[in-house]
């Protein structure tokens, strides 16, 4: 790393944006290729959190998701942990 790097801004490159956008739109293929969790998971998780927060206060880890495959059948398992009630 050169000394001039100090003056360079830490701006996020447009390539990073491109990658993130693509990871959402090509999700169907990666989910079909087995193994890892589908690429749309992070986005779905964020969206679900946003909806929940319209009604209740929840932490960032309130939504847990998992996908299971049995033959042709795919099961999306969704767990939402509600905060402990305060009364």
């Amino acid at each position, binding site marked *: 790393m050169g000394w001039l790097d100090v003056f360079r801004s830490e701006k996020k490159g447009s390539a990073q944006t491109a990658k993130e956008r693509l990871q959402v*739109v090509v999700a169907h293929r990666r989910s079909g290729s087995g193994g890892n969790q589908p690429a749309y998971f992070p986005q779905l998780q964020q969206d679900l959190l946003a909806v929940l927060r319209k009604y209740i206060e929840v932490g960032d880890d309130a939504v847990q998701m998992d996908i299971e495959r049995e033959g042709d059948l795919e099961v999306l398992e969704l767990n939402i942990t509600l905060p402990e009630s305060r009364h």
Partner: protein
Amino acid sequence: MAKIIVVTSGKGGVGKTTTSASFAAGLALRGHKTVVIDFDVGLRNLDLIMGCERRVVFDFVNVINGEANLKQALIRDKRIENLYILAASQTRDKDALTKEGVGRALDKLSEDFDYIICDSPAGIETGAIMAMYFADEALIVTNPEVSSVRDSDRVLGMLSSKTKRAQEGDEPVKEHLVVTRYAASRVGKGEMLSLDDISDILAIPLLGVVPESETVLNSSNAGQPVVLENEADAGGAYKDMVSRFLGEERPMRYTQAKKGFFDRLMGR
């Protein structure tokens, strides 16, 4: 038995024909008897890129319709031994290609050739499906750009569902990523998707990377496959690609930005 390889991408203008021409020429240069077929019926261009446009008498559709035999339609390359071209028809519509007709022609070619390269038209219509249907392997030509990557993803989906191998439950079509028009300096600046990004997103192995280069236009102007150019950039990239395809180890070149005097001074 020939190995059938489709060169495809979904998106137009990413370098399918350039890649088909140079990949076929590269295989022939290595001593393999190779034919490259233009599947872009109605919009033929491979003959121009290969520099044989004035020698086309009969085309692929003539062969399929029985109006000419393969011997009459195959154009022998004048520069490279073992290399043949089968032009697309310029006048007919894309429905001229049928699975039965294409299958028969490929079977016949298969007796004589080591490799059959199918240059796919853009899009996901009949022509593109015909080009990939009988393939054993596929080169997915992709530019480091969002629309090209998404279209490649679509095409990968088709390779795993619409091909003969997929439909008959055989071993799937072997997929290879070919990244073209790559500008390492822009990747370095975070302005362009990197090779890792692309092969990550598409989840297929990288066969080769062709740098953005002036040589490509100069070669197509002259009707000369770019692989015939000297070792420099695009020509060398296609030679490497063919070697890797044949199972040889070649380090990826042209993936690092050239360092200028200033960069070195600044210790970048």
